[in-house]
């Protein structure tokens, strides 16, 4: 895995967990799938992952990247082929030691994509079930169910059946069920993909609030990048069974390690590097397919020719009136005003499209206008691949 070099000067990047007490540890996990034609595809390809108490690690990636398989392997619903998994300080899976604890004894709770509420049990019965399995006394169960229902604001639905509830209510019950045992670790398998936008936002807050209360280690799978950035203490971007980058959402957004992360998390304009030359004291001139950029500070090995791309976030682009200094002359294609910001796209002379994000102060432009493209160089990221 190549490390990206950033032009920004910020605190040192860290990939270590913030917390010292790890609840879930995964080491060198492998799992393959056989396609219908007999082809073997790695679903989880040598993953290492540590999740600490109170942390929420979000697994983000395109569909089929192995995030759900990794999650299901953690709780024991899938059996990996090799590697180790430990939870709450004890091994739950180890291929070398032939350990494979069944899901009911791993003590990891789970929230499912399609609620998975049992239709033949009442709301109370659903929430009580994990406690019955743990042989909690009846009076304690009653109290715990009451508290769990109160925490999601559904006390009055205790005796209803799931079929009588709305989607949002069902997912709240599922949340209460996964929290009722005060678990050390909880995994979330795209739990909000089936509820509407408003309920989704409410439930995100409720999940984070529950985490504050219970303090569990959370692992959260989603393919929604906004949700990923909002929920994550650390964001793990996955591709083809591997974790490509794992860091705080801010770091992942500001310092993507490669082109894939730069375009998958947020939007990036990718410029192709065509040549690099020294310029002034410590600076470089990078010629790209869009135009020449002068970078005042750059990594030492930049002249070695290893950097192939520059990622430019939309907010690094702005427009100036024609004739003012800029790296290229462009034609404004679309302008979308959305309150505090203006999104725009421009066409370069070679037909290439770039997208930018500016303040309404520059809303003078109209589709069809000529403009000078200005790039704010300190926030660009040089990428090797």
């Amino acid at each position, binding site marked *: 895995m190549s490390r990206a070099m950033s032009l920004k000067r910020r605190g040192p990047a860290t990939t270590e967990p913030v917390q010292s007490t790890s609840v879930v540890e995964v080491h060198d996990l492998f799992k393959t799938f056989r396609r219908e034609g007999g082809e073997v595809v790695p679903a989880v390809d040598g993953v290492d992952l540590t999740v600490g108490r109170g942390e929420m690690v979000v697994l983000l990636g395109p569909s089929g990247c192995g995030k759900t398989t990794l999650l299901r392997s953690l709780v024991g619903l899938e059996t990996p082929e090799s590697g180790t998994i430990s939870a709450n300080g004890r091994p739950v899976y180890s291929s070398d030691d032939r350990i494979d604890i069944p899901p*009911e004894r791993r003590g990891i709770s789970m929230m499912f994509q399609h609620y998975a509420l049992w239709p*033949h049990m009442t709301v109370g019965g659903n929430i009580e079930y*994990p406690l019955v399995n743990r042989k909690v006394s009846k009076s304690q169960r009653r109290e715990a169910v009451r508290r769990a229902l109160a925490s999601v604001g559904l006390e009055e639905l205790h005796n209803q059946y799931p079929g009588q509830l709305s989607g949002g209510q069902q997912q709240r019950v599922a949340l209460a069920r996964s929290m009722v045992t005060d678990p050390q670790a909880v995994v979330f398998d795209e739990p909000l993909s089936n509820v509407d936008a408003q309920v989704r936002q409410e439930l995100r807050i409720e999940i984070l609030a529950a985490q504050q209360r219970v303090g569990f280690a959370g692992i959260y799978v989603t393919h929604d990048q906004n949700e990923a950035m909002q929920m994550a203490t650390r964001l793990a971007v996955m591709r083809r069974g591997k974790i490509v980058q794992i860091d705080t959402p801010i770091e992942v957004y500001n310092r993507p390690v490669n082109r894939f992360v730069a375009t998958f998390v947020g939007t990036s304009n990718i410029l192709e590097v065509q040549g690099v030359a020294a310029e002034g004291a410590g600076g470089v001139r990078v010629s790209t397919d869009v135009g020449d950029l002068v970078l005042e500070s750059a990594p030492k090995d930049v002249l070695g020719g290893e950097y192939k791309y520059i990622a430019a976030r939309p907010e690094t682009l702005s427009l100036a009136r024609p004739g003012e200094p800029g790296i290229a002359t462009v034609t404004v294609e679309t302008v979308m005003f959305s309150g505090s910001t203006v999104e725009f796209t421009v066409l370069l002379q070679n037909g290439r499209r770039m997208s930018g994000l500016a303040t309404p102060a520059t809303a003078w432009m109209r589709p069809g206008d000529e403009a000078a493209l200005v790039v704010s160089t300190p926030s660009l990221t040089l990428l090797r691949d």
Partner: protein
Amino acid sequence: MAHTTLGPEAAALESADLPAGPRPRGRRRFFGRQVGPFDAFAVLVVGAMALLIAYPLTRAVIRVMWVDGSFNTEAFVRVFTSELFWNAAWSTARILIVAVPIAIGVSALFAWLNVRTNARMGFVSTILPVIPLLIPGLAVSIGWKFLADERAGFLNVLVLRPLLGFFGYDSETGPLNINSWPGVIFIYTVELIPFAYLMISVALRDIDSSYEEASRISGASAGRTLWKVSLPLIKPALMGATLLCFMIGAAIYSIPVILGTPAGISTLSVYIINSTRSIYPPRLDVTVVGALFLVLFVGTLWYFDRRIARKARFARIGGKSSTRTVVDLGPWRRPAQAFMITFAAVASVLPLIGLLYVALQPYWRPAFSLNLTMDQFTSVFNEDRLPLALRTSLSLAILGATIGVVIAAVASAFMDRHRRFAPIVDGILKSPGPITHVAIGVGFIIGLGAAPISLAGTWTILFLAYLVLYSPQAIIAVGAAYGRVSGELSEASAVSGASPSRTFLRVSLPLMVPGLTAAWVLLFAHMLVEATASSLLSSPNHPVAGFIMIDIFESGFYGQLAAFAVLVTLLNVVIAGTILVVGQSRGATGRLNRRKGWFRTAFGRGSAIADVPQTGMAPTPSEPRSS
């Protein structure tokens, strides 16, 4: 990254939690999981079924083909040069070529009316698919004999002749004659419609109505939309239904034997069975060759059906059930509804009234009289063999349905554990479908009836034959019950800390109860009145209801026959209905449906039996199992 280090103590401690057996790293295990006693049992059960399906037929074929140690073609020559055989084959073709297109057209119309228009009538879509379950085809045929007999049919005597008399119609016969080509074709059509309706309406329900909305917005009329958009979208279902109707139709025995024989119409099924049953000495070789021909025909259609179904799976339209457009039929609404009500009456109510009326008369007479008597019912119980047949059929149906469901449940659990072997097990248990009742009956009487096994005339041979005959329905219905227990529901139980046995008892089983009872009822209802294979396999010591009805019919004791048919139908509806109502309301989701009333709870849409095809030849309904 932290490395997990495991002490030997930890390994020793935790290995107690593991299912037994080593798990070598990096090597694929032969089974997905360890092989336990359950798997051994399942393999044994499925193997026994495979043997029971393959052995009798193979033996029957060998017995005909190998005479005195050499290949014998005499039987083939005899059959394929026989005028009777070609007449029967031609008759079958003539009936189906007319009946199937009509059945498909009427079914498609009914499906569209009920799924998409404001002529929809809840009870039609509820009752249509389950008519074959509730009212045996034999009872419908006999009922229509009473209604539309050329001379003494009630419709002729009491309704049509007086009515047509005004227009100068004056005749002692007609105008209707059920013992005729149109009559036989009519009953075939009525018999086939429920099967076609189920397939087509399910397909239509699955289609997102926005396709049709888009067509209407684009300026097409409701009729044009139906013709240009809706029907093309369900083309795979229409083709599947057509093939299914040909397969079922080619193997029907009860209708032609009762209605065709008096008119000199003999179908292939009748030819095959009568070559053994009504000719002395029985021509077993002719029967076997005829059955082979039938299996070849149905099997070919079945093969094409599978190919279409496989292709259609990829073209399936997403199951998003949005709000459906209701096409306003305007002035056509009432006529459309009247048409559907008429059909429901023709298929169920009218023949039942005919049966009941004859059963309550001293004898079948073409007149209306309220001078009712229970004499016919008394006569049923005064004769030894009729109550005996009822008892035999009841014991066969109850035990057969129970064992059949257990076998299917064991096989389904095995397929769930070992997905790789699922297609083989599934294929074995569904293979009796295209083999047809006729051929299985023939195989059993020759393969198991004769020496060295010599089961002819026993209860056991009927029981084993029924298990084989209805194994496709069992595996389809039980598989659907399994599918309703989605993977997530039992997984949620496991991550909630429940052991596998608790997960089974508290989650899977309660969710499966409605489906399992539906499967039981399906088998029970069909086994109770099976007549085709039973015509070959039942004996004076072990007569069964289905065969006895044909026998009484041929002897001409119509009053007694009517009473017997009424009793069988009543027995069927009461037992099947009770079990379904109990199963549905005890089961998982039924609890919420108390408002619905017992009939819709048991048979209505959403009940476990509603979407399961009644015939073993039907393709499996879409696999709801999530992976």
